[in-house]
């Protein structure tokens, strides 16, 4: 087996033009991943710039209302730029700087990774171009303008379905043309090796903090950790430190769009099959001839036809359970958390909350569940209003 494998998944399936670029990245990453100075600088940025550690909040009203297990929320929504994406971006941009790169590119779905990359680029004095599907630009206009305010150029991608996968396609194409001076800041635990491992390593701080914070509050490990999964970076970040603890149940929640049985969904584990795409072997939503399916979710961040290779493996070995949540369930959870706890979650994170609302009432009161609240919902307010038929005039 070749490098960067998780069971049969992973690998480095890339055009030859990019191979030396990823090998160079791999070498740099191997060098810095355990470098004490690099890690000290990264953790200083986490602490002083990104507002880490993020809070672990006991959701008392939600717990009492659902009447089952005790629920904690890991507040990644309180990070600088409003989502977990900043953790990975700070790591990658710091690495880019060490590699002497002065220009970064990124793809974005909901715009959170694009905003985080534009932020990191502003901080580190780098030129930044973000590729975003034209449909997503429409759904997330505020984030487009936010990236522009931060000094980034945003390029709408018209091809395909105008969503996240098309943004990845375009970023890969553009990287092929300028791989020698450009660092590609990939936003999820997907793509060719070393990205899935590198993104996981920059996100695993989430789970490490959950462990320490819960130890302090409850003196023990959680029984359940829930996170939404598109490519899967917030989920792998929340899960990774607990994979070695078999008593901790890990649940990834996929976007089922209009329903797992409706063609308009993005539930890769529920409906996908093995394939090779975007540099990796993993599960993908595709037809019998390997044409990638046009996927759909209300959430631009989960609207992706694949899943990171480590998640695919964790599914194969049964260590993580992957379940679907529909648009309707996510919107209900979005409203529920807003009114119950006064926290407006990202519509992505609302998928995890939706499953928690099904699961928590079935569990005894002495069990503990942590929901990774991967982002805040300010960006989604207009889209939710549209979904609910409310006409907003700004």
């Amino acid at each position, binding site marked *: 087996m070749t490098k960067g494998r998780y069971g049969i998944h992973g690998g480095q399936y890339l*055009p*030859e*033009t990019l*191979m*030396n670029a990823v090998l160079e990245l791999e070498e740099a990453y191997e060098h810095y991943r355990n470098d004490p100075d690099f890690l000290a600088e990264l953790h200083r940025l986490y602490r002083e710039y990104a507002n880490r550690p993020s809070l672990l909040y006991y959701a008392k009203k939600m717990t009492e209302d659902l009447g089952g297990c005790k629920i904690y929320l890991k507040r990644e929504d309180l990070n600088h730029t409003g989502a977990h994406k900043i953790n990975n971006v700070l790591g990658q941009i710091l690495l880019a700087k060490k590699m002497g790169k002065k220009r970064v590119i990124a793809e974005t779905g909901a715009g959170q990774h694009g905003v985080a990359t534009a932020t990191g680029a502003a901080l580190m004095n780098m030129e930044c171009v973000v590729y975003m599907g034209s449909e997503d630009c429409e759904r997330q206009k505020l984030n487009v303008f936010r990236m522009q305010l931060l000094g980034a150029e945003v390029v709408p991608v018209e091809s395909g379905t105008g969503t996240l996968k098309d943004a990845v396609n375009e970023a890969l194409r553009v990287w092929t043309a*300028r791989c020698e001076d450009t660092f590609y800041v990939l936003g999820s635990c997907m793509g060719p090796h070393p990205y899935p491992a590198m993104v996981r390593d920059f996100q695993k701080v989430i789970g490490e903090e959950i462990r320490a914070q819960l130890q302090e509050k409850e003196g023990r490990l959680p029984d359940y950790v829930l996170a939404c999964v598109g490519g899967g970076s917030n989920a792998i970040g929340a899960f990774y430190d607990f994979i070695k603890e078999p008593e901790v149940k890990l649940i990834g929640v996929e976007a089922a769009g209009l329903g797992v049985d409706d063609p308009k969904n993005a539930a890769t584990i529920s409906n996908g099959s093995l394939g090779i795409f975007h540099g990796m072997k993993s599960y993908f939503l*595709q037809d*019998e001839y390997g044409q*990638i399916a046009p996927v759909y979710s209300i959430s631009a961040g989960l609207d992706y036809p694949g899943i990171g290779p480590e998640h695919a493996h964790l599914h194969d070995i049964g260590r993580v359970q992957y379940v679907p949540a529909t648009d309707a369930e996510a919107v209900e959870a979005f409203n529920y958390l807003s009114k119950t706890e006064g926290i407006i979650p990202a519509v992505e994170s609302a998928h995890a909350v939706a499953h928690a609302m099904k699961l928590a009432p079935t569990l005894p009161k002495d069990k503990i569940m942590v929901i990774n609240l991967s982002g805040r919902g300010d960006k989604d307010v207009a889209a939710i209003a549209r979904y609910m038929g409310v006409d907003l005039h700004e």
Partner: protein
Amino acid sequence: MNRIEAAFAKQKKVFIGFITAGDPTLAVTKELVLTMEKAGCGIVELGIPFSDPVAEGIVVQRADTRALAAGTTTDKIFDLVAELRKETQVPLVFLTYANPIYTYGADRFFAKCEETGVDGVIIPDIPYEEREEMLPYSRPHHVAVVPLVAPTSRDRIQKISAVAEGYVYLVSSLGVTGVRENITTDMEAIVKEVRKTAKVPCAVGFGISTPEQAKKMAAASDGAIVGSAIVKIVEAHGEDSPRYVYDYVKEMAAAVREAAK
């Protein structure tokens, strides 16, 4: 001697033309292959359209979209090849991505290639490191997996070339496929590296559209590969495209032959 070897043996410099199968229809593709051969095309590369062709520029992306919208599938393309083999022995090389082959089943795919008469396959997202994904299935069926060498390949050129089958596809420039005004890469230097280990010929592609470029690239190597410029003609003229493609290929193939002198 297989068909690809015979093509390079017969014409010292080979003009290689690319079209997307099923653009605008498979019937037109059949006519185009026969026309291109008549016009002097030594090898025809047939694209199996893919929903997300990450190595392609906008021209071939649009061709893939048109072909898929017209209902083109891998099975229908194999049927087309079987039909073509009743009329021509021109070497046929597929260009497609890892996923359509993997999902079809690599063993089944290469068996079909052998059965219908496909001579080689180019898979842009299978680099040297992942070649074992295909070679254990392609070799028993005698289908050449044509590797790519890029301007960024540097220390990788010799090992890629050493295991090359069919020919080595030399990528002229950084970026995706598409017409370019200037090709600045030092192709002579790359060809020199390739020839240190390669047992097969090499041809240059990406960005070539004029007879001057074709002649220059063929002079530096063993052939010139032209895709987007032909696909553009197909896009402009649709069902009427064969006669326009004939004129274009004739001029380009003549320029490549010039390079042999």
